[in-house]
């Protein structure tokens, strides 16, 4: 999975940096956005292979971003992993229904985080590649 690019959408710089060093250690490239609207712009510009998304964002929450991306003609196929401190009982189903691939509640175990990313990328690649 080396060389895959992951867009991290989170308004907390410490969280972004924490994810960056962990993901880059595992061979991924990273890029960032701090709110829902710039997340859409960053996804268009960077064309990431996967998006890691927080729900509590300024200028529209994470659900807005999922909605915008999933209705986008080309970006809609990118897998989205939601990573949030919000109560999973209230938000997991909504996020998955909206189009997220997985929902992880903070704090996230790093091994689980990487496994979910890898799984989503494998599924995405097998869907994206021609037979």
């Amino acid at each position, binding site marked *: 999975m080396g060389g895959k690019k992951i867009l991290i959408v989170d*308004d*907390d710089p410490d969280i972004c*940096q*924490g994810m960056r*060093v*962990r993901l880059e250690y595992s061979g991924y490239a990273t890029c960032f956005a701090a709110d829902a609207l710039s997340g859409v712009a960053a996804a268009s510009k960077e064309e990431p292979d996967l998006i890691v998304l*927080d729900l509590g964002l300024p200028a529209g929450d994470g659900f807005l971003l999922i909605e915008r991306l999933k209705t986008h003609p080309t970006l809609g196929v990118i897998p989205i992993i939601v990573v*949030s*401190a919000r109560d999973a009982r209230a938000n997991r189903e909504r996020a998955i229904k909206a189009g997220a691939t997985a929902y992880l509640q903070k704090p996230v175990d*790093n091994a689980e985080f990487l496994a979910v990313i890898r799984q989503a990328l494998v599924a995405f690649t097998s869907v994206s590649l021609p037979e």
Partner: protein
Amino acid sequence: MDNLDKEARLLGKLVTIRESFLQRTRSELPALLELLGRIQTGDSTGLAQLQIYAHRIHGSGATFDFAAISETAGQIENLLEALIGTPAASAVEPHRLRCLVDCGRRLALEIGATTTQASGVHR
């Protein structure tokens, strides 16, 4: 660079990020307490800003292994969810307001007492 070196560098970076979280949270504490003070006097204009602080501390605190700080910030976030949308803080049930202020004080104490050596960093 061998794997041990690589891992040591990763851990070093994570420790630095943890310290940065704690430092930033400490620097935000006066503003957080000021917002709580305003809410106590019936001014609800700071509720949304307080919720932003609480949400950040809740999520990042858990991520960086500051469990007590994260839990208290989560309680504040939950209390604020019930208060946001209330026309004026003066209309809020007094016990909710008391809980919010108590949680704020506890959070301030926990942040003040926490050091980065208190717990580990997980790869």
